[in-house]
């Protein structure tokens, strides 16, 4: 397989305005990889459909047929909203304070390049029917090849999540009863299902790659069973790949402050190993950390992120994976470009929401019913600002 030299990252980036070095951007080294290598390792040409599981497509169709011809109240989109995402924040709430201040700062050095792929999935409530909610999910995979970044976007798929027991049986058997959290949990489970599926496909396709997930490697909740993630990471390890997960927001605290503040004075690129500081707090917790927890600062003046790396991979290999990441990907503002693009491609814009609503009206004969607003009905123009 011939080696193909791809463009330097500098060629893809605008020149620094000041003429000096842009410290927000980590510039990677020359990439030595072939498109055949990446694409064949991804095995996506012949199996694109497999990134979107057939059972979810069928489930979408089945649940939507339940509401054919009914009325629905569409989600109102604001002209001020640039993008919409119902993604729930980090599942872990704030943790306690650890007395130890002994966290190791590890400086990263770009090493040899390797394939980098990122996965992200978004979900969104599209509207409401009399018997449930309409939701949509969409996933995206972005990876680097010698032709630049490439992506596959999966979805969106629309679902009707019925709240009555008989509808739930014919819709999605999630067993949540009729609790008020049904909607959020059902959507969350759908999103996790698609996300894990795509992650599994990617991890079982790539060789010697760095695979980036959005969020943390925290498992053990009913919607996020640990076995699924364990199998995905095992599949990655079998192929020499390492899973790294970036959290855009975290509530994890150590030494009395948020863990992301621990690297504020450190020289980038570096990570701070906070695993010991936070791990002990999970011993009696139902959820479990499947990843070794770091705080990463990958670019000077960039942001700090919680970074989880596959716990089953030795520390040296985890650090080496990070070295390969900063050698292979643009790290803008401290965040990997592949993961940023995956997020952009999966996130719903208000335009997407209207498009899905239009599809529902055409394909399923759903009629748009104006949303009843008790406050407006009672108070007219004096009751529209949400005052108590």
């Amino acid at each position: 397989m011939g080696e193909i030299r791809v463009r330097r990252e500098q060629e893809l980036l605008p020149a620094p305005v000041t003429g000096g070095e842009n410290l927000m951007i980590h510039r990677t080294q020359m990439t030595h990889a072939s498109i055949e290598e990446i694409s064949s390792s991804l095995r996506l040409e012949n199996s694109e459909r497999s990134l979107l599981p057939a059972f979810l497509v069928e489930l979408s169709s089945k649940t939507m047929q339940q509401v054919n011809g009914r009325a629905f109240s569409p989600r109102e989109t604001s002209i001020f909203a640039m993008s919409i995402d119902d993604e729930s924040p980090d599942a872990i709430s704030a943790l306690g304070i650890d007395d130890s201040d002994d966290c190791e700062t590890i400086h990263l050095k770009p090493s040899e390049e390797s394939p980098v792929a990122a996965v992200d999935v978004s979900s969104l409530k599209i509207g409401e029917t009399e018997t449930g909610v309409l939701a949509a999910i969409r996933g995206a995979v972005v990876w680097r090849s010698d032709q630049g970044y490439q992506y596959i976007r999966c979805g969106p798929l629309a679902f009707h999540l019925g709240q009555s027991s008989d509808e739930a049986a014919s819709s999605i058997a999630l067993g949540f009863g009729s609790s008020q959290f049904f909607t959020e949990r059902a959507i969350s489970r759908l999103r996790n299902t698609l996300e894990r599926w795509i992650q599994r496909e990617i991890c079982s396709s790539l060789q010697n790659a760095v695979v980036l997930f959005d969020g943390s490697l925290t498992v053990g909740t009913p919607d996020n069973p640990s076995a699924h993630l364990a199998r995905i990471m095992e599949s990655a390890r079998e192929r020499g790949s390492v899973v790294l997960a970036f959290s855009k927001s975290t509530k994890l605290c150590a030494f009395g402050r948020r863990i992301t503040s621990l690297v504020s004075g450190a020289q980038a690129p570096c990570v701070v190993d906070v695993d010991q500081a936070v791990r002990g707090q999970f011993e009696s917790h139902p959820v479990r950390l499947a990843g070794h927890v770091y705080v990463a600062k990958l670019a000077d003046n960039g942001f700090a992120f919680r970074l989880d790396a596959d716990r089953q991979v030795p520390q040296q290999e985890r650090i080496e994976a990070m070295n390969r990441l900063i050698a292979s990907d643009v790290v803008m503002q401290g965040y990997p470009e592949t993961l940023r693009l995956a997020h952009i491609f999966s996130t719903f814009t208000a335009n997407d929401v209207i498009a899905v609503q239009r599809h529902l009206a055409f394909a399923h004969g759903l009629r748009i019913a104006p949303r009843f607003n008790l406050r407006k009905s009672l108070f007219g123009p004096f009751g529209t600002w949400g005052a108590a």
Partner: protein
Amino acid sequence: MQLISFPEEEVNKGDYLIVEDQRSHRGLIIQVIDIQFANIPGILEDILRDVMTEESIQGNDIDPLDISSQVAVLKDTKLLLCKIRGALENGHPTHDVSWLPSRINSSVSKFPIEIVASEPSPSRPILLGGIKQNPKFTIDAKTLDGRLNIVTGKKGTGKSHLSKLLAMSLLDHGAPCLILDVNGEYTNLTRRASGESSPYEGKIAVLTPRLSLRFTLAEVGLGTMMDILLHALDLPGTSARVFARIWRQLEQKNELTVKSLGEAIADSDCHESVRDALQSRYNTLADSGIFTDDPSAANSRQLLERLAAGEAVVVNMKNQSFMIRRIVVELLLSKITELLSRNRLRAVFLFAEEAHLYLRETYWDDIVTRMRHLGIFTTFITNQPDTIQESIYRQADNIFLFNFTNERDLDVVARAAKIDGESVKLLVKDLPAGHCLAIGDVVRDFPIVVNVRPLDVEALGGTRYFFQENSIACPK
């Protein structure tokens, strides 16, 4: 009123739509005056995402619901800015609209405006040109009869072409037309584009002051001469009274000639300053070459006979001085008014091109009030809309607006046209050459964009180009 239009729906500015309320069985007739992209939430982000990633990132969509096609539709969705022009109640058009259709129970469709804007079978049809859904849009000559019309637009857009069309069409129906032609554009109306003679030969006479348009003083008469002296030559009142006395004395002696008039002024026993004033005016009149003592060289009778016979007279004032134009126009209008008041003429359609170059200010109001009632129905043609007084615009019955891009010109027209200023500005600034916005009685107050039909006449007066192969004169 604003409407959403999806990409597969072809709608253009100026088109008419009908919003039919299914419950009340009424329809609102609206006109599209502007088309914009619908400002759908998030559209900018989508476009930015496309633009920012189209070169640096490639990929595929697994999109079983085909949502991307819906997104594409939304990106190209248009917002139609419309104005309410009337309504259809029980099949009858009306301009009285005091209701709004339901937003939910209404359907929108294209409306063939010609069915309400023109007679289905006019007794005196004038084929104006094509409109969007009808290549043969016809108006009734009656809608120009007794009316004040304005044709305006920037140069090269087809104003004179439309004026020729209107004049020739009126001529087809036996209406007399007097055309005041400052650029010599109407002198070859009897010639086809191929140069052959047309059926209008013999129906249109071209008269050129000093050459083929001359008058004896007796034909002119004292009243008309006084108009010329007072209004065209600014003779003071005192001097005018002396002139009238001299004129009457010569008439009594049956010696009213150009020569004897000059001698009588020179010999008059009036104050020196009065004599000088009269002498200078006389010299202007004598030098103009319009007046003759030879009755066989004078043709005012022929001019009036042709008008009375329902023919057209083109007064070619090309290359004539400002003073001669004023004298000629003053003389003609005064003479025609006199004949109309004596019922020797039924009416005359006057086409006045760039009238500010020869029409005195007091005539503007006179034309739209007194002369109109006598039977002079004027069509003003100008590329400088601010040269026509606002009071004239307000009294205009029909306005044919061609393209204007200059904001000041648009402001002038928008302020005075018979429709709202926003419509004028939005519709007129994008009109292609040869298209006009017809407003007023000719279209029953439903403003319509008309592609003026070609005429088979020899083109004159179009812009002369140095690079002939690239010439794109006004529509033929």
